[in-house]
């Protein structure tokens, strides 16, 4: 992909990354509208700094940073952040188009994941980021990113009801 700043058809570029970005932002936002606000601000900021869109780790780091700021702005959200830090948070729900009961159960199992595992999973599965990019976005090592991913899958497997 080209640089966002020089991409004439930025819509194509944005439409490719927007669903994953909104899903990623949704982990910290209560509503899709808030998540879209976060993505909008992050994307415009990213564009203004003329970062290379190929540097997706940076783009996701921008979304994450703005999402956390967004969370801190409001006291209620700050309280929510403290509860989100706990591993039993059930308030943040990714948005998916659910087609059957097995997918509903999968989404429910996703909600049970700790934030640090879920964000790695979201970046890996629905945004196709490499572990190097995830590590860059989250400022962790690649090994940590990979192990969080494995833990997330293991937890999902454990929490999913047997078919």
């Amino acid at each position, binding site marked *: 992909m080209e640089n966002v700043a020089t991409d004439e058809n930025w*819509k194509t570029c*944005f439409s490719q990354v927007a669903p994953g970005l909104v899903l990623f932002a949704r982990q910290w936002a209560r509503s899709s509208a808030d998540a879209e606000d976060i993505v909008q601000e992050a994307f*415009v900021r990213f564009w203004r700094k003329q970062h290379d869109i190929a540097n997706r780790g940076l783009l996701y780091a921008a979304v994450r940073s703005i999402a956390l700021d967004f969370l801190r702005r409001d006291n209620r959200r700050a309280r929510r952040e403290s509860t989100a830090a706990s591993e039993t948070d059930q308030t943040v729900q990714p948005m998916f*188009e659910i087609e059957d009961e097995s997918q509903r159960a*999968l989404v429910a199992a996703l909600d049970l994941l700790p934030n640090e595992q879920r964000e790695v999973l979201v970046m890996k599965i629905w945004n196709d980021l490499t572990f190097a990019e995830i590590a860059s976005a989250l400022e962790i090592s690649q090994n940590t990113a990979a192990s969080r991913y494995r833990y997330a899958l293991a937890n999902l*497997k454990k929490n999913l009801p047997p078919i």
Partner: protein
Amino acid sequence: MNDFSEIEDKLRKLRPVPPSADLMTRVERGLAEARHGESLHSGKGSTRLRERPVRLGPTARQASTAGVLPRERRIHFNWLPLGLGLAAAAALVLFARFQLERPVKKTPALAAITPAPAFSSPSSTAQFVPAGLTQVVYHTRDEGLHFRNNSKQPMRRVRSHTRETLRWRNPTTGASLRISYPSEEVSLTPVSGQ
């Protein structure tokens, strides 16, 4: 990792809900504003951004003029330095005011402080009103008994050194004028023998 391939497949089949069309419009507006801001504020040579501006499609142009405004931008104030600055300024003003209004320190009065003399000031200080006269006796010496010429009654002579300070004040401007000078005073007190 093979243990998780099945669950990875299931996860990949989950499709995130696509973002609203409004998001695209808002981002478009945000980018347009950012581009406008860059062209306004940047004094440097042209960048690739300005050389190759983003072309908007017809629907996007319609949307951008359809009154769909981006979410209100929040202005962040850093209140701490502002508050500290204001507090410092207020303290400075109070301190200056206190310094200006602080009364002049009076020297310990060994003698009496007399009321202001009732005389009019010279023409140059016509607006100055007498504010007080202070006499400070800082040295007194008893010179013993003396007999004045052709007098049989002895008199005790006491010589005292004083400093007199006259003060005027202009009530309209608050300015004050002070004149201070040394003086010597000799007093003779008759002494009656028993």
